[in-house]
């Protein structure tokens, strides 16, 4: 029996491609009745094409989705119910998978997929610029006041270097705002999921800090309207001091794609007014199963995901192989497991670590509370992009007015999607 699986690394990423093919060969050897038909693609999901694929109903048997895609996959009626197939026997690490990640693929009591990556965000810092500016890179700032102070010091280096950067396009502005408000202890959406909750002191504090850095301190660039992929390039080119991201930005983008040096970056927790983040937006991705899959295909798909993504020491978690292949090992991510599974994963990772864990210690020890993403996340983020953009481009931006207008728009979105 054959299962098609997408998000396989293409030949343009030779080492990842090689590791994937090795895993498929080993899995097929262990399960001679299963053939994995890999669909090679990067990026794993292009949202517009993904939506079109769902409408056409031609997704692979086991298909990659972001956590934020759950509603649209269910609305399109394309996900199979896998609840009865998943138990501690078929998925040994089940009880140790972090609850927010499992919640991201669950609707009511029905399970529609298995999570494979889960993250919280922190503050990535450029250790080189910190040192040049006379700052201590082992003590990343934790409060917005410290971020502002350090950003000013870094901007003084000149040569087009700016202390802080943030997004305001491609839904990424709203996405970051969401994480920043989580750290402040605020919420994007009320607990009932029926209305916007970001027009709060916490929301205003975040936007005020950004506006201060952009127009009072001038420690953010006049070039705004930036989307994902831009700040990583600035960081790799040593032109940016700090920005908010998950750790994988360093080892997936800044170093391999943008040419940064692996030892030049560190990470602290998300900034907040108090210095102790109340939480962080957590996100990630998962695999779901096509509605048309036969029971045997669902069983085979679960077997494959357990092998490739949910077992320490194997597949994605084969740290010894990653080290041998020249990949950096030792980042505090993905935060998929708790309990015994996490302990085993950490032990294996530490054994093969190639990056200095001290660079990430303040992020790791903050143990940020994973908050999950708001209801209708992408639509909400889209609505907050113009707010972030206005705050970062208009010296006279009226923050209260902007949040009030966006509240009306988000309430409308939530009412329509209910």
């Amino acid at each position, binding site marked *: 029996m054959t299962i098609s699986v997408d998000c396989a690394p293409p030949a343009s990423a030779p080492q990842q491609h090689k590791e994937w093919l090795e895993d498929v060969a080993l899995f097929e050897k262990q399960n001679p009745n299963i053939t994995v038909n890999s669909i090679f693609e990067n990026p794993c999901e292009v949202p517009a094409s993904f939506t079109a694929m769902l409408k056409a109903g031609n997704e692979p048997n086991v298909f990659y989705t972001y956590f934020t895609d759950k509603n*649209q996959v269910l609305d399109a009626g394309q996900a199979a119910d896998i609840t009865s197939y998943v138990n501690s026997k078929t998925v040994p690490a089940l009880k140790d998978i972090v609850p927010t990640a499992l919640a991201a693929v669950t609707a009511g009591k029905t399970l529609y997929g298995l999570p494979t990556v889960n993250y919280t965000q922190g503050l990535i810092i450029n250790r080189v610029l910190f040192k040049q500016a006379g700052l201590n890179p082992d003590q990343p700032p934790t409060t917005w006041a410290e971020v502002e102070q350090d950003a000013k010091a870094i901007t003084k280096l000149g040569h087009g270097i700016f202390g802080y950067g943030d997004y305001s396009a491609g839904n990424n502005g709203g996405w970051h705002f969401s994480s920043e408000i989580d750290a402040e202890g605020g919420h994007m959406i009320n607990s009932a999921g029926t209305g916007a909750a970001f027009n709060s002191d916490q929301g205003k504090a975040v936007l005020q800090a950004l506006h201060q850095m952009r127009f009072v301190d001038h420690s953010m660039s006049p*070039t705004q309207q930036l989307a994902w992929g831009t700040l990583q390039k600035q960081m790799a080119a040593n032109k940016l001091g700090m920005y908010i991201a998950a750790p994988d930005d360093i080892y997936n983008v800044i170093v391999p794609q943008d040419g940064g040096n692996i030892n030049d970056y560190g990470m602290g927790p998300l900034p907040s007014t108090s210095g102790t983040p109340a939480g962080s937006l957590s996100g990630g991705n998962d695999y779901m199963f096509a509605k048309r899959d036969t029971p045997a295909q669902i069983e085979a798909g679960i077997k494959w995901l357990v092998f490739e993504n949910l077992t320490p020491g194997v597949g994605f978690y084969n740290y010894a192989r990653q080290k041998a292949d020249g990949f950096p090992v030792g980042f505090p991510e993905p935060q998929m497991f708790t309990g015994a599974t996490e302990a085993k994963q950490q032990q294996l990772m530490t054994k093969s670590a190639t990056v200095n864990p001290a660079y990430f210690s303040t992020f790791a020890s903050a143990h940020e509370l994973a908050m999950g993403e708001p209801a209708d996340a992408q639509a909400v983020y889209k609505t907050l992009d113009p707010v972030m953009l*206005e705050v970062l481009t208009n010296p006279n931006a009226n923050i209260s007015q902007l949040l009030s207008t966006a509240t009306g728009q988000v309430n409308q979105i939530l009412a329509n999607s209910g």
Partner: protein
Amino acid sequence: MSAHGFLIGAVLCFGFFSWYPICREIVMSFQKSRLGVTSWAGLSNYERIFRDPTFWTAWKNTLEFTVLALIIGYAVPFFVAILLNELRHAKGYLRCLVYLPVMLPPTSALLLFAYFYDPSYGLFNDVLRHLHLPVSQWVQSPGTGLPSMAMISVVIAATWMNMGGATLIYLAALQNIPGELYDAAELDGAGLFRKIRHVTIPQTRLILSMLLLLQIVATMQMFVEAFILTNGGAGVNNNTLSVVNLIYQYAFALSGASNYNSASALGVVLMLVLAVFSGGYLWLTRQTDR
């Protein structure tokens, strides 16, 4: 019979790729889809788009773009064509130069302009700095006034990209005007502007009115210009959000709340507006011809 045979290809192409999608769009605008089940939704998709505050913003911006594109994008190629027609030297070279931007893929041309407009290191601000003039945030300018700096920036890029085609069409029309008409006008003492007003414009009226219609229909469907220049967004405070951009957002960008049905409803509204405009325009030109 052979005439009908020749028609089949065109009819099939139009049927599959134009008429069927139009009919499907109309049907989908009255439906909703939940958990894979499609059902009739009455006018709820239309109610949703009319209640959306960005609906009116998008229409305001689209009309702003259309008017600015007419003022700048319609007049500039006409005068460039007149200038090219009058030139005695380097005609071929200059025509090639004017047409060159049309040959660039729109995305490349717009990415070039995105770089020109960059507030930190863009070419335009560099020039302004050298001239000791105040710099601008161009397409990232805040403000939703009429006209907004952001929208003017979009129109400048769009005009640069598209004027080559219109210029060539005007040029062809200008070269069909008999030279004796200009000679006669000159004998009657007409200067350059009177010749343009009394000879050039009346003689090219048909081409001018055809391009006017085509340009309005095209500019009302503006999408790629603002989309690329704003990095997939819609400008500061949505000041470059167009109707087609909003359709795209409904259908694709709002992953999680993506809604083909609302997108279809907005598509139908845009189609009706353009159909009413085109019908009214054709009726008016027929009246004038009589």
